[in-house]
């Protein structure tokens, strides 16, 4: 009886919505695996192990980390029996998905240690992805994508070769060490789901990704700042912040990356953003190296480095837009945050003037930063000697991100934000266009016109025109809303 209870515990630890998603996911995965088995030669123990690895990942990534969260919650709530059962459930799954298949495949002629290590590594990496911060999770994803290239580059022996355990054992130990450390950190510090250090599983479980910018967490800003180490904190620069420079004051009161910072603080913050992008550039270089093992470094740098920079620029601009929208949204939905202070602060100018100052304060920094990215991205595109159409498409993806930032900024401060379904639909539509315009030229042959032979290019142009019109409408509507408000610093939902 206890066996079935422990087996079902991870499922019980999920929300209804997560269960529905998982059912859909497992259905698709089941079909995929069945097709894989039908078409592949799955008779050898190596093939069977690889199939089992995939199946294990589908359990250890989306399902079992929630059981670890259950153990953590039970620990914090002083419910030792629930905590014990959560751990027992995890051990049971380890026995069923790692130990038992390894023994069974070993009996049928496989190498038990290699199979056990493979499955343990898969489970460890999967758990580490779900249980560590978003930064480490991204590294793990890059690592997984680069799997084949890394094998080739580093000459790592695979499952069937003798030296397999030499790299697999330490990697497995490292992944489980990460999981253990994450669990301890979570238990000790009770990390909030909105914190950048929060594990992915916590973010997904609490819908922190969705509510972060929605004002549902009015004190989210304070929580994030509280959990940041000193070296991660922003370094505000108070010079010239006063009635003589109201726009600077508004930026200081709104906080975030665009507030006035000291040069060292700005450098430090830039490094925090650029460092992960270097990982991305390195990822692209390794990928190019894997694709062109005998290519010259210049060619590899060109195809890997420059394309990586273009992609980084595109991602950067999109992320910048959404992070910025989230920050403004939060500020205009939190009555106790900076708005009350700004509304009663003398020296920001009369109503008309303060509206003008606010508009410039919220638009200028984000447009400035994105314009810089546009220049970098265009320079890279021109260096790659892409066609003019390609250059225009890349520029359009950047301009799209700028358009989103401006339109939604006015919609938020003007109190004329669209309903959530409309924002989501438009964002998905916009992201799709940005990605198509970014990836198609960089993945096409240099000099070729992307989507040229088909009528897809005209369709893309039409889609961009529709998006531009929608953004102009949202922006103008927001701007009119701002003009109609009695003063510039009224929170949304207060009228």
């Amino acid at each position, binding site marked *: 009886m206890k066996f079935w209870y422990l087996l079902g515990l991870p499922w019980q630890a999920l929300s209804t919505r997560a269960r529905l998603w998982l059912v859909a996911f497992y259905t698709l995965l089941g079909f995929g695996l069945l097709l894989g088995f039908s078409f592949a030669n799955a008779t050898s123990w190596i093939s069977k192990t690889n199939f089992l690895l995939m199946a294990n990942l589908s359990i250890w990534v989306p399902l079992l980390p929630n059981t670890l969260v259950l153990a953590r919650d039970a620990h914090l709530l002083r419910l030792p029996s629930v905590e014990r059962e959560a751990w027992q459930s995890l051990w049971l799954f380890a026995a069923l998905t790692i130990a038992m298949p390894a023994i069974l495949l070993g009996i049928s002629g496989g190498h038990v240690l290699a199979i056990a290590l493979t499955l343990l590594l898969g489970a460890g990496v999967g758990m580490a992805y779900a249980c560590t911060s978003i930064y480490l999770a991204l590294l793990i994803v890059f690592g997984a994508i680069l799997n084949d290239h890394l094998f080739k580059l580093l000459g790592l022996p695979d499952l069937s070769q003798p030296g397999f355990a030499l790299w697999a054992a330490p990697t497995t130990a490292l992944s489980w060490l990460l999981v253990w450390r994450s669990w301890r950190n979570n238990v000790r510090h009770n990390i909030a789901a909105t914190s950048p250090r929060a594990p992915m599983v916590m973010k997904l479980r609490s819908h922190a990704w969705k509510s972060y910018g929605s004002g549902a967490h*009015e*004190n989210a*800003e*304070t929580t994030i*700042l*509280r959990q940041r180490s000193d070296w991660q*904190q*922003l370094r*505000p620069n*108070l010079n010239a*912040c*006063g*009635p003589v420079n109201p726009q600077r*004051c508004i930026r*200081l*009161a709104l*906080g975030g990356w665009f*507030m006035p910072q000291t040069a060292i603080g700005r450098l430090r913050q830039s490094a925090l953003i650029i460092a992960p992008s270097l990982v991305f550039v390195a990822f692209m270089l390794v990928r190019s190296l894997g694709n062109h093992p005998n290519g010259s470094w210049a060619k590899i740098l060109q195809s890997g480095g420059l394309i990586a920079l273009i992609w980084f620029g595109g991602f950067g601009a999109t992320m910048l837009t959404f992070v910025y929208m989230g920050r403004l949204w939060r500020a205009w939905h*939190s*009555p*106790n*945050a*900076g*708005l*009350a*202070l700004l*509304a*009663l*602060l*003398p*020296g*920001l*100018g*009369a*109503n008309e003037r303060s509206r003008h100052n606010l508009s410039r304060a919220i638009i200028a920094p984000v447009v400035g930063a994105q314009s810089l990215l546009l220049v970098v991205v265009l320079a890279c595109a021109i260096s790659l000697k892409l066609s003019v159409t390609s250059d225009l498409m890349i520029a359009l993806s950047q301009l799209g991100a700028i358009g989103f930032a401006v339109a939604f900024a006015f919609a938020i401060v003007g109190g004329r934000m669209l309903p959530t379904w409309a924002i989501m639909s438009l964002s998905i539509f916009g992201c799709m266009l940005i990605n198509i315009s970014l990836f198609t030229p960089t993945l096409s042959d240099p000099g070729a016109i992307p989507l040229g032979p088909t009528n897809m290019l005209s369709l893309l142009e039409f889609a961009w025109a529709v998006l531009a019109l929608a953004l102009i409408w949202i922006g103008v509507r927001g701007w009119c809303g701002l003009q109609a*408000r*009695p*003063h510039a610093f*009224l*929170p949304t939902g*207060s*009228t």
Partner: protein
Amino acid sequence: MNTVLRHNKIASATPLVANQICHSFDARPILNRVDLSLPAGSVLGLIGRNGAGKSTLIRIMLGLMQPQSGAAFAFDEPALKLTDAVKSRIAYVPQQPDALAWLSAVQMFEFLSRFYPKWDNDFANQTLQRWQIDAGKLLAKLSPGERQRVDIIRALASQPDLLVLDEPAAALDPVARRELLREIATRAGDAGTTVLFSSHIVSDVERVASDVAFLHNGHLVLNCPMDTIRERYARLWLPASQAASVPKESLSRRRGKDGSASAVVERDANGRWPGADISGARFDTLGLEDLFVEIAE
């Protein structure tokens, strides 16, 4: 000349006025035709149960929210269109201060001091020291009580003519609460600062307020000087045989298990208690806390 006239006009203006304020959230009425006036030099304690609409009323009176109907004025200017001259005379401390969390207390004071001509830097630094608050620590990293005290210091350092505190004692320990109340009393007494503070801690209001206003179910059910409470309001008790005769104008009414009735009543314009002529009627004087419980329960 115009500046002098304007200054005199502002100086003699009523610090805060609310006229027929109505507001609702999600179709639930929060404020219903609320009228409130805060004369210069008064210390008004705004009391009410949690969720009674105290914060909403305060925010509307300061122009931080737009009411669905009615109007609010600060120093005779529309609250939603305050000039810099009026803004510099107002200090507001929200219930959970969240602004400028990325600055330290010293940085926040340095920044804000540039906007207020009468900013008292010595007071700010000395009070920070006296209240043992780490001046260099990020505001986000302070405890809620410390954060609230920093905001109170910020408000007081600007030497406002109108000080508005929304539940100022909510996160404070008893010692800090006493100090705050002392400071409010001193400011009001020595500098003539007008103070509006909301609270559901009735003893705090009794200690410092010159006037009290009670917000209940969206209505301002009483608004009077503190020292007239005992004279103006009383609990009327009626035996079971007279329970149906409870005066219509009573502020609250309830029935006992034995069929008797009790109600909170206010003296009429002639100084008489309503229901005084009913046989068996008995009147009990009420303190502010009893009055609060009688009406709110």
